[in-house]
C-alpha cells in the first residue's frame, strides 16, 4: 500500500472557509447535506414508525397519513420480545459475534505482528496472500463450506459460524492492525530485544498495550461484519432457537402468506439497536481507525 506521507490534520481546520458567505454556504453545503441526511435516515424513521403503528393504520394509507402515527402502540415490540425467541436469537448473535471476533483478533494480532515486525522470509507474499481471501467471499464458498461443516460435525451449531467467520474477519483485521503496528516506533522493540526480551514478551507487554485503539477499532469492524453476515447463518443453522437475528427476523413474522409488518419492522429496529448502541460509544474509534488505516 502506498504511503501518503502527510501529517494528519485536525478536524476543525478553518482553511479557506472565511472566504464563503453564509448564503453561499447554505446553498452549497447545508442544503445538500440536509437532503442526503434525510435520505439516509428516512428508512429508519420509517422502521421506527411502523413498529409502533397500530395494525389498522399500517395498510390504510387513505385514512391515515403514513408519515405519522396516532396512538402509538407497543404491541409489536412486545410481541417481538415476549412471544418469539428474540432474546434467544439476540444472545446467539452476540455470542457468535464476540467469539468469532476474539478468535479473529488473536489470529490477526499474531499475523500482523509477524508480517510487520518479524519480517520472516516470504512475509510480504504471505501478507498479500491473506487479502486474496477476499477474492473468495461467502457467496462463492457457502456451498462447499456447508459440506465441510457437516464433515467436521459442526452443522447446526454456533461453532459452524464461530469458526467460519474468521475467514472473513481475519484479512481485514490484519490489514488494520498492520497499519497500527507500523506506527509504533521500532526503537521500543529494539531496546527490549537488546534487553533480552523474547518476541512473545514484546508482543504482549509492549505492542498490545500501545495498539489498544487499533484493537478496539478492529473489534468494532469484526462485530459489525458478524452481525451483518447472512448467507452462512442461513445455510449452516437449521434449528429455530439457534438462529441469528437477521435470519430469524426474516422467517419469524411470516405466517405462511401473511406478513406481520408491524412486528417485522419492530424486529428490524430492535435487531439494529445493539450495533447502534455499540457505535454510539465507539464511533470516534471507528473513524480514527479508518483514518489510521487509510494512512497506510
Amino acid at each position, binding site marked *: 500500500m502506498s504511503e501518503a506521507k502527510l501529517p494528519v490534520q485536525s478536524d476543525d481546520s478553518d482553511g479557506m472557509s472565511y472566504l464563503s458567505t453564509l448564503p453561499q454556504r447554505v446553498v452549497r453545503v447545508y442544503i445538500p447535506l440536509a437532503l442526503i441526511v434525510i435520505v439516509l435516515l428516512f428508512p429508519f424513521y420509517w422502521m421506527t414508525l411502523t413498529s409502533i403503528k397500530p395494525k389498522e393504520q399500517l395498510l*390504510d394509507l387513505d385514512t391515515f397519513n403514513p408519515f405519522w402515527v396516532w396512538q402509538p402502540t407497543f404491541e409489536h415490540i412486545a410481541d417481538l420480545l415476549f412471544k418469539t425467541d428474540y432474546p434467544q436469537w439476540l444472545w446467539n448473535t452476540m455470542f457468535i459475534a464476540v467469539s468469532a471476533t476474539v478468535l479473529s483478533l488473536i489470529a490477526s494480532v499474531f499475523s500482523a505482528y509477524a508480517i510487520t515486525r518479524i519480517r520472516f522470509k516470504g512475509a510480504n507474499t504471505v501478507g498479500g496472500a491473506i487479502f486474496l481471501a477476499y477474492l473468495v467471499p461467502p457467496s462463492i464458498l457457502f456451498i462447499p463450506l*456447508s459440506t465441510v461443516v*457437516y464433515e467436521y460435525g459442526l452443522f*447446526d451449531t454456533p461453532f459452524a459460524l464461530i469458526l467460519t467467520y474468521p475467514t472473513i474477519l481475519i484479512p481485514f483485521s490484519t490489514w488494520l492492525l498492520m497499519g497500527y503496528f507500523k506506527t509504533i516506533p521500532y526503537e521500543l522493540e529494539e531496546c527490549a530485544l537488546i534487553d533480552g526480551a523474547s518476541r512473545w514478551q514484546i508482543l504482549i507487554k509492549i505492542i498490545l498495550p500501545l495498539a489498544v485503539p487499533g484493537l478496539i477499532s478492529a473489534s468494532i469492524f469484526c462485530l459489525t461484519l458478524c452481525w451483518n453476515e447472512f448467507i452462512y447463518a442461513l445455510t449452516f443453522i*437449521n434449528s*429455530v432457537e439457534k438462529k441469528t437475528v437477521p435470519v430469524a427476523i426474516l422467517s419469524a413474522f411470516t405466517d*405462511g*402468506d*401473511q*406478513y406481520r409488518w408491524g412486528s417485522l419492522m419492530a424486529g428490524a429496529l430492535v435487531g439494529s439497536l445493539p450495533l447502534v448502541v455499540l457505535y454510539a460509544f465507539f464511533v470516534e474509534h471507528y473513524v480514527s481507525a479508518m483514518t489510521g488505516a487509510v494512512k497506510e
Partner: protein
Amino acid sequence: MTTRQFSRRDALKSGAALAGAGALGNLSLFANAWANANAWKPEKGAKLQILRWKRFVQSEEDAYMALVAAFTQATGVEVKVLNESLDDVQPKASVAANTGQGPDLFWGLYSLPHLFPNKCLDVTDVADYLGKKYGGWVPTAVTYGQSKGRWIALPAAYNGNVINYRQSMIEKAGFKSVPGDTAGFLEMMKALKAKSTPGGFALGRASGDGNAWVHWALWAHGANLVDKKDNVIINSPETVKALEYIKALSETFVDGTASWNDAFNNKAFLQSQISVTNNGVSIYAAAKAASGTDPKMKEIMDDMNHSLWPVGPVGKPTEFHIAYPMMAMKYSKFPNACKAFLSFTLEAENYDKWLQGGVAYLTHPLNAYDNNPVWKSDPKLSMLRDVAKRTLTAGGEGSVGEKAASALADFVMLDMVASVCTGRATIKEAISVAERQAKRIYR
C-alpha cells in the same frame, strides 16, 4: 417462531386443560387404547422432531399442537415441532437428507420425498393400514406417496387453492358468479378492470399461489411441460395459445403483481385493493378472525366467497392444489416412533379434529373423511372437500419425482409466464427458455 416441546408433564398439563372442555377426555381414552393396539410400538426413550411449514391459519396450528400433545400423552414420546417458512422446508429437508442428521420427520410439499427417495423410511405398512381403515387413498395420494411401488411418504393433507372473490364487485361488473369456463373468466376480469376493481394473481416467485394459477392456466389449454413419458413437450401450439390467454388475463391485473410472493395477494385482498385472486382459505380465515373487532373485516368476510377454477378448452378441470406429504427419514433413531406418529396423525379421532381446526385449509387424502363436519359447516368452504380428488399432480402428465420437484423449484413455468406478462420476452422466446431448462432437468 417458538418451537414447542411437549414433555410428559406438559402433555398432562395441556391434557388436563383440554379435559376441562371434555375434548381430551375422549381423546385420552382413545389415545390410550390406540397406544395399546398400535402396531408400531415406539422405541424406549424415543424423542421425535418434526419440521413442518409455518401455519397459514392459527386455528390449524392450535389443533395440530393438540394432536401432538395427545400423541405424547398416549405414548410418552416427546415431540418437538419445528416451524419453517414454506419455501425453506425443501432446502432444509434436502440438507438433512444429504448429511444424515436432522429432524426425524418432515412435512413438506409436492414431491419433496422424491428428491431423495432412498433416504425416506418405507412406510408402506402404515399406508396400507390407513388405506384399509379409512376408505382408501385418493389416486393422487398414491402417486405422491409411492416410489417404485413402495410408500415413502404419506400425503397427510392437501391445501385447496381456489379463486377468492368479492361478490359485490363481480356483481357490479355484471356477473352473478364466477364463470365456469376460461373465456368467460377472462371477460369477467376485463369487466372488473373496467370498473376499477381489478383482480390480481401473483406473477412473482410465489411458490404456492403463483404455481397454482399458472399451472391451471397452462394445463387448461393443453400446454404441458412433459408428457406421460417425461418427454419435454412445452414447445407446442397449445402453449402459445395458453400464453396468449394468460397475457390477456394479466393485462386486467392490478399493477405490481410481478413482485408478488404468496403474501401480497392476501394483503391486497384484505385491503379491498383487488376483487379476485387465488389463495387457500387463509384470506377468509383471517377476515373471519378479525371480524369481531374490525367492521371492515366483517364486511369482507360477508362479501367474499370461493369458487373452483374454470375449465379450459381441454374440457376437464385442470386444478393444481398443494399436496403436503409427511415423511420419516431413514437416519432417524426411532423409526417405530415415526411410524406410530404418522399413523396416529391420520386416525379419525385426531384427524377429524385437526381438519376442523384447519377450517378447510387442509383437505383429506383418505375417502372416509368426506364426512367430516367441516365440509358442511360453512357453504363458502364446502367446495374444498374434493380438492384432493380434483387436483392434478406436480409434473402434470409426467412423473412425480425429482424432475418435477426440480422444475417447480426452479420456477420454470412461472418464470415463463412472468417474462411474457411483463413484456421481457416474446412468447416464442419464453417458451424456448423454458424448453431448454426443462430438457436439462428431464434428461
